[in-house]
């Protein structure tokens, strides 16, 4: 194959930072990335992937964390004949010191392609492109320096948290602490796929849900509060003085008409109607804050379209206090996993199993009492069981 890659080169141009420039930087040190650029050009020419399906590879003692990848034409692209991915579990909240990052970079330049994703969609550090022989030495060195693999396959995928109390005044619980604790507790489930399919846990500290827990985690924790939001009238006045249109942008957009401007003061005139949606807080962060009786809503079942269509998580526990050692939350998750593991078919996510067996059967199995917060409306059909 000729070495020119005009289509790929085109993407070096333009204002947005270019991944092609990054490929070319890595290619100076790694022959595999020279081939990778040619593979990308070929896929642009043929409008198709140039990678083979799967391949089982891994490191000793683990069933997940490495995704096998082989190129379709190894004779043409010998340096990416085997080009596996390693998922490295990130620290909660994606906080790093530069020493740790430089260590990962050095290990990866020594053993792999020098190309990475910071980060993958689930949250792991993705080390993109390793030969089969170098997998174990890469892992050994990572492990020696305090890093471990993330999830892949039918296991608990690396749990993720929003920035939470690290830098956000809206964190209704310690998302980072909870996710770190859960990740450490369930190392076995994360590294040795035991389940019918993948499963995910994500924690967002407030209803803004910055890690999209409600859209993509089987077990979603989203921060909320039970008392009333806190309003600082002096700060409200500051916003008004700066000609911020409180009436139009905040009051008029309150979804339940719970908040009103009364003689220049912003008041929660109908606290019983507030649904804690975050809108007013988002627009006036200096003046309005969540209440102090904080915790989380636990919702279950979110997943992407495969197989029976995308699902958003639905409410299981409207409110729970989230405090170490998080026993109640872990016990609930374990019960849910046990029911799913026992009843789920291969590649059936939790939501699909709940749909197949019925939400009432699920609630009974995990011993959770039904409550109105679980539904938009009660059923409209007359077909219910008494058995």
């Amino acid at each position, binding site marked *: 194959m000729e070495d020119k890659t005009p289509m790929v080169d085109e993407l070096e141009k333009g204002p947005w930072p270019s*991944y092609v420039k990054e490929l070319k930087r890595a290619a100076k040190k790694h022959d595999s990335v020279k081939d990778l650029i040619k593979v990308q050009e070929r896929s642009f020419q043929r409008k198709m992937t140039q990678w083979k399906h799967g391949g089982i590879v891994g490191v000793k003692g683990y069933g997940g964390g490495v995704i096998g990848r082989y190129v379709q034409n190894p004779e043409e692209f010998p340096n990416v004949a085997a080009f596996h991915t390693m998922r490295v579990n990130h620290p909660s909240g994606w906080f790093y010191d530069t020493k740790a990052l430089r260590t990962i970079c050095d290990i990866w330049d020594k053993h792999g392609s020098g190309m990475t994703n910071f980060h993958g969609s689930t949250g792991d550090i993705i080390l993109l492109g390793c030969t089969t022989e170098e997998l174990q030495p890469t892992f050994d060195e990572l492990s020696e320096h305090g890093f471990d693999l993330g999830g892949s396959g039918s296991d608990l995928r690396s749990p993720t948290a929003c920035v939470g109390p690290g830098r956000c005044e809206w964190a209704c619980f310690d998302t980072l602490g909870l996710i770190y604790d859960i990740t450490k507790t369930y190392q076995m489930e994360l590294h040795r796929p035991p389940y019918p399919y993948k499963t995910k846990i994500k924690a967002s500290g407030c209803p*803004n849900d910055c890690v999209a827990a409600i859209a993509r985690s089987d077990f979603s924790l989203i921060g909320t509060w039970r008392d009333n939001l806190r309003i600082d009238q002096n700060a409200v006045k500051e916003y008004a003085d700066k000609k911020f249109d409180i009436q139009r942008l905040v009051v008029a957009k309150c979804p339940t008409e719970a908040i009103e401007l009364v003689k220049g003061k912003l008041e929660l005139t109908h606290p019983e109607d507030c649904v804690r949606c975050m809108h007013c807080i988002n627009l006036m962060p200096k003046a309005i804050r969540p209440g102090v009786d904080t915790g989380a809503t636990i919702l279950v079942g979110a997943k992407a379209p495969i197989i029976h269509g995308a699902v958003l998580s639905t409410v299981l526990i409207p409110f729970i206090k989230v405090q170490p050692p998080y026993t109640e939350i872990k016990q609930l998750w374990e019960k849910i996993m046990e029911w799913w593991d026992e009843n789920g078919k291969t590649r059936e996510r939790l939501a699909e199993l709940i749909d197949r067996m019925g939400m009432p059967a699920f609630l009974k199995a995990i011993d959770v009492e039904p409550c109105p917060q679980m539904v938009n409306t009660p059923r409209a059909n007359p077909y219910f069981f008494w058995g």
Partner: protein
Amino acid sequence: MCPTDVGPPDFKTMLPDVIKKNYGKWKYHEILKPGVMKHVAESGDELYTVRAGSPKLVSTDFIRDLCNVADKYCDGHLRFTSRYNPEFLTPKKENVEPIIKELNKLGLPVGGTGSGPGACLSNVIHTQGWIHCHGAASDASGIVKALMDELYDYFVGKKTLPAKTRLSLACCLNMCGAIHASDVAVVGMHTRIPNIDHEKMRAMCEIPTVAASCPTKAIRRHPDPNIKSVVVDETKCMYCGNCFTVCPAMPLANAEGDGVAIFVGGKVSNARKPPMFSRVVVPHLPNNPPRWPEVVNTVKHIFEVYADNARMGERMGEWIQRVGWERFFKLTDLPFPVQLIDDFELARDTFRSTTQFKWT
């Protein structure tokens, strides 16, 4: 023998001092300008954040570049957002401008902040695409680069949006990154049935597993008992690729047929309206590397119509709910092909049972 199951590093060891001191005790924040935030703690301590754009697919030298900036101005600490943006954290206000200068020198834009009126576009959540995936119906990094070159002004705040806008891309229906609740989602789609490799099937796959993987029961055993393989009912297959995931003998990739669909109006935040799914508004656009002009122009057009028509503070999905889907298609001048009408499970939930329409 190396230790196993050590787990990720304890995040607490990675926090800068100002965060350790004020952990869980933040009072409020302000966005000083696109990409720059100031958080103030109960203690009065201040923390400045500078957010930069990243292509996500980066070399180790890129990470080292970021480390150099963090060593110089942030006591060796940095973080990444859930949308791949590196963030530089410092208690020193005087460090903000030098950080921005260094980042710009590295070719990195600063921006991507805000959720209310005047918000910037955040970075694009995306998958691997042709750079590394066997099942991709389209590329990822290539289209994202082409899109962000055109939408760059929205990221750096030269152009603003009525509200937070999240653009995402997945190169197949597995949707790593769960992009089905984004304001605008670009999704790689196959449009041809699997091209069955009977030889591979015999060697690599279990026929009952392959048949059971199909959500529409389009796959059955080959009628000729001498052929140990399957056949696909073309009238039932909707190209989801689930069979290919369980069996390498069922590839769907097809240079002519593969392309992307555009979904709009989803969100995950609970602010105002509850979270909602993105909905298909363009069922198919061709793969046209390296710049995907059809995709880029359509997405840019949708952004512009939204920016021109939505009220301040309205997410794309909220705007569409208010004006109605009929007006969305009128305003954007997008056609309404039959593929936009659902015929999968729960389709009936999307049909309208009212005489309420908007005609103008």
